[in-house]
């Protein structure tokens, strides 16, 4: 019964191919748009999530500077108001799990005939645990490297690519940073982009003492640009931020009401904001795409109404030879559903194709989830039922005699 009705629906649809195609096109475009937009939106969310994961969790960055000595304000981190002792003191706070003092700068790095201009990070071994960053080959430097300010370096993947290419194993080689020779002891695993778009793999990490004395030598001894601190858990973030603020102000003898000579950034909160933004964006895209799905549904309803009117006589004949209201209802409902589901299948295909194209053309991250396809499918089926129901029930409620007499 069901299959003969399905074949009837197919008959009716193929009787007016162009019209069926155009009606279907509304669904195709709607579903295609939903799938494509969700793929783009979820891709963006995914890439932000990955950047956040790569950053480490529950992090504060305490930046030196942002102070003004003679009225003109300089950029955060530009002056060196923080030092190693501040870092140790922060590390001793109750809510702080781990800390790492950091000196950063950019420098020319040379190996053989190749060179690269990369970020130089001077820090301590705890930096790697805070950021959940490990070596891919070789090994991390140790506390004894810090104490004796050894010229050892860990290189990121991008640096390896630029300096060594694919052929040479960088471990054990000597690179020159600002003309000083450094021994490469390890290659860091890939981190990808940070959520603000920097390439985190274009980095060389050296012991902080080495960086202070041999690379950024013009600074006050013992000073650091920033201190990274990790709170024990997310719920202590607020308390910890306050504690750090009080501690450093006290250490720097800053009077009440006076401006701090440092700033604290809650990286986790910033990342969360970025993630929320991406989510909102993704929902917005989906919502706009859904509107086209709605328009497609209205198109189906419109054509089904025309179809019911055109086939009034046919409905009358069917009723005269024994079709129940239910049969007529099912027949037209099935037709609407077949149109919307076939349109949906094509639309999913088109959406996936479009997503691949977007990935290829502009390199945007794309995430095709089964969830979005299932969602598009179920929405399309319910659009078919919802917008097909009214015309179908209109057909089923026709009076047999009036339907038979209809010219």
């Amino acid at each position, binding site marked *: *019964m069901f*299959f*003969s009705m399905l074949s009837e629906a197919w*008959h*009716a649809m193929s*009787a007016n191919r162009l019209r069926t195609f155009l009606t279907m096109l509304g669904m195709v475009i709607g579903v295609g748009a939903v799938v494509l937009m969700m793929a783009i939106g979820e891709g963006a969310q995914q890439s932000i999530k990955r950047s956040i994961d790569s950053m480490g969790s529950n992090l504060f960055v305490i930046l030196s500077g942002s102070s003004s000595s003679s009225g003109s304000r300089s950029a955060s981190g530009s002056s060196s108001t923080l030092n190693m002792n501040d870092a140790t003191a922060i590390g001793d706070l109750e809510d702080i799990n781990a800390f790492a003092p950091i000196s950063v700068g950019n420098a020319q790095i040379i190996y053989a005939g190749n060179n690269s201009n990369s970020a130089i990070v001077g820090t301590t071994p705890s930096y790697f645990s805070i950021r959940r960053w490990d070596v891919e080959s070789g090994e991390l430097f140790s506390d004894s490297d810090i104490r004796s300010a050894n010229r050892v370096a860990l290189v990121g993947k991008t640096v390896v690519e630029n300096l060594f290419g694919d052929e040479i194993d960088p471990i054990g080689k000597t690179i020159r940073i600002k003309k000083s020779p450094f021994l490469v002891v390890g290659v860091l695993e890939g981190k990808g982009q940070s959520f603000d778009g920097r390439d985190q793999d274009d980095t060389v990490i050296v012991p902080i003492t080495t960086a202070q004395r041999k690379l950024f030598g013009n600074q006050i001894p013992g000073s650091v640009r920033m201190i990274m601190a990790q709170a024990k858990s997310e719920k202590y973030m607020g308390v910890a931020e306050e504690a750090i603020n009080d501690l450093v102000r006290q250490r720097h003898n800053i009077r009440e009401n006076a401006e701090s000579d440092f700033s604290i950034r809650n990286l986790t909160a910033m990342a969360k904001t970025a993630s929320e933004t991406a989510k909102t964006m993704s929902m917005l895209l989906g919502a706009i795409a859904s509107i086209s799905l709605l328009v497609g549904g209205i198109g189906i309803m419109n054509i089904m109404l025309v179809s019911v009117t055109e086939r009034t*006589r*046919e409905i*009358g*004949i*069917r*009723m*005269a*030879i*024994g*079709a*129940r*209201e*239910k*049969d007529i209802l099912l027949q037209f409902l099935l037709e609407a559903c077949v149109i919307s589901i076939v349109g949906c299948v094509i639309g999913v295909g088109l959406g996936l194709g479009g997503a691949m194209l977007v990935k290829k053309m502009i390199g945007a991250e794309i995430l095709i989830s089964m969830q979005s396809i299932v969602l598009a499918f179920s929405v399309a089926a319910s659009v078919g039922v919802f917008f097909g129901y009214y015309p179908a029930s209109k057909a089923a409620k026709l009076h*047999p*005699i009036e339907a*038979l007499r209809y010219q």
Partner: protein
Amino acid sequence: MAKHVIEIAGLYKDYDTPAGVFPVLKDVNLTIDDGEYVAIMGPSGSGKSTFMNILGCLDRPTKGEYMLDGHSVKSLSSNELAKLRNKTIGFVFQGFNLLARSTLVENVSLPLVYAEDQKELRTKIAKNILERMGLGNYFDSKPNQISGGQQQRVAIARALVNQPRIILADEPTGNLDSKTSDEIMKIFDELNQIGNTIIIVTHENDIADHAGRQVRFLDGKIVEDRHNKKQKEKA
């Protein structure tokens, strides 16, 4: 054979028009036995078509009793009426009323679809009946590819496919020339001979003369109900 297939008593049908209630049938009483061959006659507007629609369960009477095959039709739901139209009554229309897009086999097997028979069985029965109607070579033709007489034979095949108790024909020869009309009437004659109850609505005396009983409507009432002595001799 004396069993009553149709018993109608005190039947009224009114139509609500913008100008007021318009009575079409007024106190109609009629009994038809199993195996009878009845012609319902009358000028247009006499109510014979409305009567036919009520007989065929396409419409409900305003008042009165209609017993079909011993069961009262009055209290039946629309689904039950549909089942009667499907199983108990076979319709033949003036304008054939075939589905233009479907093949002859599909047209003939359509009542079986609604009777929820299996596809193989449906096709077998439909082909069988089409062959009996002399249309064995046209199984997969569309209605517009065959003549009017052939189309009416397809319609008769469709009416017979569920082996109904009654065949209702509404001006079955109205769209056909006299030669083809004779052929179609011959089929009805044969069907009646093998025991089918046939009711034909017509305004042509020639056609009505095939029937053994003639019922004449005028102004919504039966004015004549007589045995037809002139019933044509069937071959």
